[in-house]
């Protein structure tokens, strides 16, 4: 059995390596194969000033001077037009080619005292015209020396005041200008959007972003794919709005404070916050280990689970943990804490602390079903250990792992840290909305950088598109992870655990968080000192 998995893994790795090797770097080009073009796109005509090796049109170089003169161009106009129209084509969005006219562009007459080196390049002015205004422009450039793979033509393309450069090669002969977004190449916009989606997806795997919330919710019995998709949609919209809002605030603040002065302070604040989170976590680990805080194991006497006799909440252990990304402890509304919470690491730290401490959560007794139905094992319990609900069973309350925040989980603890639905209460769209908003409320710095960079480049609209794509990628991963949890939740029972490792990990993660915060703060201080 292990060999099959090993073989599959090796095949996957080999495939990845083959893909990597296949992405070969471009080869070197030679000077003699160079061509350049200045392209200026207008409404009904596009002009191309093309400088290219004269050898490509040797049939027109009557005096074999290495340069085409105005007379030679005029003499061979028809042949040149036919030849160049086959090699270079400009077409609009309806695939209509522009009508080509050619003019000679002669070089300067340098003083006779300067014996310039013979030039091997000629310059022509190519004009492509259409009868009606062009929407979208596609350029096909195939004027290369036959069999010379390293030939290339660098084109500068000016449209609506925006300049774009593109290198035509034998392997890359087509370039497209998107209507309305003239500075975008045919596939470039789609590639940028795809990259933003991928970036959002990858970024969502970093700590935070509501994964724990989504996971805990979707593990619940009442979770459906429709709920998950709604949750993802709300997260996307909320996150996008959050980025826009913060972007606007930053731009506004930048009018009064130079961005270079603002960013280090933001970084310092962020770093300090992360340090405080890490230290807080670390101290909480220490408090948990202190003898005064340990809870002696105790057991319940056999008791009835009749709601009438147990009006209060009780606790379940070992695997019932708080799935909350709330920074604090003791609130019912997740969004209350999230509205004031710090960056992602805070939420992650708290949720992780809850997970590792396996703090008992409270369930209202009315919703807690102690029947022996076959569905019970799937009910909102992320429990690693099966437990029965025989009325004579014991609830052992081993609190050896302590609590995240050092408080007591009494039997009269009336609040729940569970997302909506996990405690058995009916799931409503409003609760899902609140959950999604809480998950996407705090914008990712990465998305903010994306937006601000686009604005700085004068491409605000495309920046908004990219941020939306980023948020979409983020939401897709959240949904995917959630759905995986839905189908895989029963496997958690089989995952082996190492108690000692699990005891050490929380402190280690707290230390790592603190170090990250120190690093961020140091960098910010250095930037401030350099100002």
């Amino acid at each position, binding site marked *: 059995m292990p060999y*099959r*998995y090993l073989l*599959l*893994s090796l095949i*996957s*790795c080999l*495939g*990845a*390596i083959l*893909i*990597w090797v296949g992405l070969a*770097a*471009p080869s*070197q*080009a*030679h*000077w*003699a194969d*160079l*061509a*350049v073009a*200045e392209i*200026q796109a207008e409404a009904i005509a596009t002009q191309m*000033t093309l*400088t290219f*090796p004269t050898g490509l049109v040797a049939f027109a170089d009557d005096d074999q001077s*290495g340069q085409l003169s105005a007379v030679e161009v005029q003499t061979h106009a028809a042949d040149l037009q036919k030849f160049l129209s086959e090699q270079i084509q400009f077409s609009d969005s309806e695939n209509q080619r522009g009508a080509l006219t050619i003019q000679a562009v*002669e*070089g*300067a*007459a*340098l*003083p006779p005292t*300067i*014996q310039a*080196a*013979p*030039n*091997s*390049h000629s*310059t022509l002015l190519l004009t492509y015209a259409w009868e009606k205004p062009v929407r979208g422009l596609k350029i096909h450039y195939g004027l290369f020396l036959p069999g010379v793979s390293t030939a*290339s*033509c*660098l084109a*500068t393309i*000016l449209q609506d*005041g925006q*300049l774009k450069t593109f*290198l035509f*090669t034998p392997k890359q002969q087509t370039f497209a200008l998107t209507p309305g977004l003239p500075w975008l190449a045919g596939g470039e916009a789609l590639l940028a959007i795809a990259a933003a989606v991928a970036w959002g997806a990858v970024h969502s795997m970093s700590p935070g972003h509501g994964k724990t919330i989504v996971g805990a919710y979707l593990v619940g019995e009442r979770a459906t794919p429709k709920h998950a998709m709604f949750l993802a949609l709300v997260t996307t919209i909320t996150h996008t709005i959050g980025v826009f809002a913060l972007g606007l605030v930053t731009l506004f603040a930048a009018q009064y404070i*130079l961005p*270079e002065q603002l960013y280090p302070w933001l970084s310092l604040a962020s770093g300090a916050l992360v340090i405080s989170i890490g230290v807080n976590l670390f101290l909480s680990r220490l408090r948990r280990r202190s003898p005064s805080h340990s809870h002696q194991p105790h057991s319940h006497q056999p008791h009835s689970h009749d709601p009438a006799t147990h009006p209060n909440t009780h606790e379940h252990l070992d695997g019932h943990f708080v799935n909350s990304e709330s920074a604090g402890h003791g609130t019912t509304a997740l969004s209350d804490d999230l509205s004031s919470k710090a960056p992602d690491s805070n939420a992650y730290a708290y949720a992780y602390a809850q997970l590792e401490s396996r703090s008992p959560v409270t369930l209202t007794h009315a919703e807690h079903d102690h029947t022996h139905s076959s569905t019970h094992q799937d009910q909102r319990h992320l429990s690693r250990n099966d437990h029965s609900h025989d009325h004579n069973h014991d609830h052992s309350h081993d609190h050896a792992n302590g609590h995240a925040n050092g408080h007591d989980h009494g039997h009269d603890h009336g609040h729940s840290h569970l997302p909506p639905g996990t405690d058995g209460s009916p799931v409503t769209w409003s609760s899902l909305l609140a959950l999604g908003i809480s998950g996407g409320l705090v914008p990712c710095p990465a998305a903010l950088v994306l937006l601000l*960079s686009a604005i700085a*480049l004068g491409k605000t609209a495309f920046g908004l598109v990219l941020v939306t794509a980023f948020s979409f990628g983020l939401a897709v991963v959240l949904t995917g992870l959630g759905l*995986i949890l839905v189908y*895989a939740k029963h496997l958690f029972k089989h995952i082996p655990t190492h108690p000692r490792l699990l005891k050490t990990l929380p402190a280690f993660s707290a230390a790592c968080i603190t170090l990250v915060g120190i690093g961020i703060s*140091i960098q910010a201080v*250095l930037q401030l000192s*350099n*100002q």
Partner: protein
Amino acid sequence: MKQLTALSPRLGKRWWLVALVGVPLTSGLLWLAQVDWSSQLEELSRLTGSRLDAPYRYPYSDSLSQSNTPTARTEQEIAHYQQAVRQNGGSGLDEGALAIAYLQMARTTGQGHWYLLADQVAQQSLTKLPVNNSAALTVLARVAEAQHDFTNTLKLAGQIPDPKEAIALRVTTHLALGKLSDANQAAQELVDLTLSPNSFMLQALVQVAEGNDEAALKNFQYALTTEEPGELSMSARTRTLLGRFYYERGQLGLADDLYREALRILPGYPAAQMNLAQLEIRQERYGAAERHYAQVTAASGGASTVYDSLVLRGRAKIKALQGDRPAAEALWAEAEALLRQSFTGTNGFTFGHRRDLARLLLERGNPNDTAEAVTLMQTEVARRRDAETLETYAWALSTQKQWQQAQAVAQEAIALGLRDATLFYRAATIETALGNSTQAETYRQTAQTIDPSFDENARQAAGLGAGLGS
């Protein structure tokens, strides 16, 4: 799903587990293979600030915009002047300014296409404005200089109305030709005319060539002290050249810091990358050197640059030092083809250096190549007799056992004044072959005095840097 289950019931049940583990693992491996960790760590250390003190540290860090690269700034200028040419019908002045912008791109990126554009537009400018057109003539002269057409460079410089540009061209051309007295005179004229960073830098380079290290260092510092915000290319170039100065005197740490400071000012600046690669080769950090070469290649985006052959030579040297002779031979062959094509005859754009081809043939160490190396250098020294060219010629003559001639050439190079440990080591080798052990020892001690850390590694890395001509 059913098929998988049929093939292996146990596997079918766990296929998704394999995918869950395998996909991230494979993706992670693929990502790790693609991500240049060392460069990213270097980038991170670069972002934490400069390790240099003033005036070596760039004082205008605030002007280093993170979102707007220097080439983007030049592209904006190009867009502006292209529009002006179209709207104004082309007065000649707009074309001249456009040509200057193209030249700026060429010198920043090293890409040959931009030189071609600059030349073509400069000619158009001269067609429309044949008189008092400093911009166009300067561009034509600079393009000629890049092609090592020094004769035409000086002729064109003589036509430039603007004295600053004309004198600056005279300085660099005379330096390249090895005419140090003319270069010195021109450099002094330029400093008298304008106390600009460029004039101080050029005077420093002349003093380095003359062996006047103290005065050169002082002028480099003047150049840095008088630099202005926004002139990123100038600031990066000065630090790169100063870094070379320290490299050739064995102060590798300071050279490293200066190259990296240049990259902090102008990210991806090819000359700084090339010199860093040379430094890494000298310190046997071949992986780091490969990364710098890869960055130079990647930055060009497939376009040919003036550094192509030097990158290939450097990579070949790395392979040779690592003992991978076949890979080294392949890279040398590729560089050789590139260099041969680039200066076939005198037609068209030629950026190839005979000297570079000769050095390649000598580095490869094939006995069949030495005769051609001598022939190439004989042609080259007929055009220019600067110290580096003479040292290469002496090397070529040594491989042919023409010791007497090699001795004369080496002595001529030493007489110019350049303090170059490689040159003195070459001279020591020649004197040893001629049986002049005392003179050989003197030369060796001089080499050690100039560069106390000069060793076999330094000799292997010699000739792989990018200097003034780059």
